[in-house]
């Protein structure tokens, strides 16, 4: 009895293997008639989500001014230390980067800089085509990074929220701010 049961089990296993081969053949053949997931890159480009982590850009606020305030948080959070910048300040107190350099030959496109950015200035884009024959061409300066639009975040303007006054926005004109106090007033 034990011998018969063993033979039956082996037979089922063999049958399973054979059927699996047919199922595989069927699947493969079936894909001949389905739409391909791959695209003919580079002739064809894939559609990438806006949240894709590719080439880094610096964006502008809705007023068209540079969003970057040179706070250095992206640089310090960068695990490969590939961001270097220097703060400068215009005549009205607005901070901006004097230079802003990203060494893309070191960048691992982790997106931590974007997470750290308090002004939505630095953003990763769905562009990944950055291959170069010369590593030196992968060093991007501010003029290579700065784009003309606000990127993914259309409305945010850091200086409208922050208490520091800049040209065109005086003390007390930011969100949730009371007008400046007249310290010469005798009223309590």
């Amino acid at each position: 009895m034990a011998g018969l049961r063993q033979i039956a089990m082996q037979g089922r296993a063999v049958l399973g293997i054979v059927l699996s081969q047919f199922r595989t053949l069927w699947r493969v053949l079936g894909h001949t008639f389905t739409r391909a997931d791959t695209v003919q890159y580079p002739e064809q480009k894939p559609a990438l989500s806006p949240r894709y982590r590719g080439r880094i850009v610096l964006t502008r606020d809705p007023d068209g001014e540079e969003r970057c305030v040179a706070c250095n948080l992206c640089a310090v959070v960068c695990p490969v230390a590939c961001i270097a910048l220097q703060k400068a300040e215009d005549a009205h107190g607005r901070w901006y980067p004097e230079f802003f350099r990203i060494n893309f030959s070191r960048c691992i496109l982790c997106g931590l800089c974007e997470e750290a950015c308090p002004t939505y200035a630095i953003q990763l884009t769905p562009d990944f085509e950055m291959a170069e024959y010369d590593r030196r061409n992968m060093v991007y300066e501010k003029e290579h990074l700065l784009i003309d639009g606000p990127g993914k975040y259309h409305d945010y303007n850091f200086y409208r929220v922050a208490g520091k006054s800049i040209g065109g926005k005086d003390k007390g004109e930011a969100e949730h701010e009371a007008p400046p106090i007249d310290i010469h007033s005798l009223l309590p």
Partner: protein
Amino acid sequence: MVGIVVDGEPHEVPAGGNLLQSLLSLGLDLPYFCWHPALGSVGACRQCAVVQYRDENDVTGRVAMACMTPVAEGLRIGLKAPAAVEFRAGIIELLMTNHPHDCPVCEEGGECHLQDMTVMTGHTFRQYRGLKRTHRNQYLGPFINHEMNRCIACYRCVRFYRDYAGGDDLQVFASRNQVYFGRFEDGALENEFSGNLVEVCPTGVFTDRTFSAHFTRKWDLQTAPSVCVHCGVGCNTTPGERYGTLKRVINRYHGDLNGYFLCDRGRFGYGFVNCADRLTEPMLHGQPVTRAEGRARLRDVTFKGAIGIGSPRASLEANFALRELVGPENFYAGCADADYAMLDTIRRVLASWPVHSPSLREVEGADVVLVLGEDVGNTAPRLALAIRQATRNCMLAAAAELKIAPWQDAAVRELAQQVRGPLFVLATTGTRLDELAEVVVRRTPADIARLGFAIAHALEPAAPAVSGLSDEDRQHAESIAEALKRADNPLVVSGTGSGEPAIVEAAAQIACALSRRRKQPASVSFVVPECNSLGLMLLDPKRLGKALESAESGSVPAAIVLESDLFRSARTEAVESFLSRVGETVLLDHSPQATAHRAQIVLPVGTFAETEGTFVNGEGRAQRFFAAMSPRGAAMDSWRWLAEAHPRHDWQCLDEVTGACAAAIPVLARMVDAAPRADFRIDGLKIPRQTHRRSGRTAASAHIDIREPQPQDDTDSALAFTMEGDAFDAPAALRTYSWAPSWNSNGQSIAKFQDEVGGALRGGDPGVRLFEPVQRGAAPWFTEIPRAVAAEPGVWLTVPRYHVFGSEALSARAESVVERIPAPYVALHPSDLARLGHADSVELNWHGFREVLPVLADDTVVPGTIGVPVGLPGMPCGPCPRTLALRKAEPHGSGVST
């Protein structure tokens, strides 16, 4: 010591302190704002709440402010008790209701005490929906930026500026949550300690304007322990570099010296390092040459038998290397002969008299202070700040009688009002300390010296008497001597500022007389002109005048001038004649100056921020300073240029020079202990100059070379130009920056490096004191008492005047300091000016040159003398003559210098 219980754990803490300080000293974290170790407690911010229990059965307890709670035996408190935690979180939330949303554009961000405390209490989400109050900012001068929106009204700024530093132009205005800290109107903060507001302010209301101009976050600065070069006090500093620029200088805590505070000259004078006109290439007859060429020329000059002129602002090692190169018999001091004479006296007194030269902490403990002929506030501001604290000791004594603890700041000040301890200022002109003095006596330099000798005689009849003293001066001498006799801890302060050697001698005489009376060394503190003036003197140089004289006879084939401008140290015509008679002149310096234009060979060297070495301050403390950055261009350490030119010595690193210097000069034997040697390691690694959070390593120089440069090797010290290693456990002399987990701000994180908060650094404060008082030295009295000078008609006795900003050459080159430098002038007493016919400017005979200078009426000038500011840009060069003949200048400046 008393036993207290914190969260059920027993601890031992020193008796008499407040609970907050004790908890911090135990290494526990408790948030606070208004308390400061140097300023004491006022209980204003309510942040340091703890729960205090009656006894072990009390489980509820009550919330108490730790800073206002004295520690007592058996005190039981809960740091982590829910009531305390909730209370502290609530306070932070309230403080933050008006705080602007601007950390990214705040210079304080990353080293902000408010950020640290907010994180520590766990306040992350804002619930307040109301409007934030806003304030307009003020222009506060070239040093300080003002951003009032960030204020949390802890009152630390006015407590420091007004109560501690004696400033009167920073006020608090308005009321309740509208309070405003600023000036009555826009304008530069006048007090010379205003820069400390940057570190005292727990948030970003007051920030460093010079730093903001080329701002870098704290974590990106490459820093090294350093020593200030702008006066002879030797305050410890931390210079920080980024992208090849010296970005800022901040205080480096030293328990015995500067403590928590620096003066503005030390903090903002660093700008000279960044000047575009620095000497960076070796120059031969005005043409740039290679380093090898420069070295070869230096060697040639040495073979000719050159003399060496050492520098009071170069390190001991550099001066010693020069002394070895030219031979001790050819080694001269690069300072004015008058300074030389005074420094020589100071050297002898400190080395062999029974007097003690006190540290600044000891100065703060003095109960009677006599300042003899020195405008300490302008020549050594940090020492003046210590004297200012010393005048409070009578307040503290009165408070102690009423059992008020010294840290109860508001109570002590309320009790004492404006009462100040005995301070006697005997000066040759008005000084910054006059406002605190019980007695101010202004006389000519010779008369001040005579008065000093008279005080010494009144203290100890064995000291020579002074004849022909006026009755008034005799009374002054008697009363001051009486006060010094009664004092428990008297202090005499003098220095080289007056230009009168007899004043230094008189100060030493008084201290010696006190020592004899008290049978123990009395304290005397000497102000020396430059950061290493005393160190240079310990190498036993000859005076500069001798070098100038020997050149007259044509016996000087060449001269090597180390980091000094001869035109500041001797008369112009004497220097001109010296330079023209000397065959060849080599100058080693970092900044352009008058001698650089005349030297045939100029070799560039590094500044204090780029080199390493040892300075000896006025106290006689040898302190090591380290490079925060590498020198510009072809510049090198001075000692290295000189060592490479030496035919026999093969010194490869600084330790070898230091060792050779210590072996050759007995009094400097202990200078090797000023810092650990270059082979010092922690876990096999050097001490990092960069923080573990440094950014941009792979991008900072990628535009020049895509490959990251290898970190520069530093063979001269145990510090590395990298971020690898243990900066936290470094010995105090090698501590490159002050940071501890949860504590990012410089002023507050230092608590983690101190034995006891506000006390000595762990492992001892850095530096080595070279002089210990000779216990029973039979010091010979100075017997040459100067005669009173009778004024001649038409001839005025010159009295040097000093300015914090301008009188010191290096800081005067800093861009921000330039704004604060007064215009050239001379000062006369109003009565003298009236005799001259109320002139706007006077024409004077300056070493044979006719100079026209604006004249200022100043009633602190002694009649018959003329106050001449020292070193101000635009003043005639050279040490000022002892007397000046002057007359009213013709209009339109017909008598401009010839």
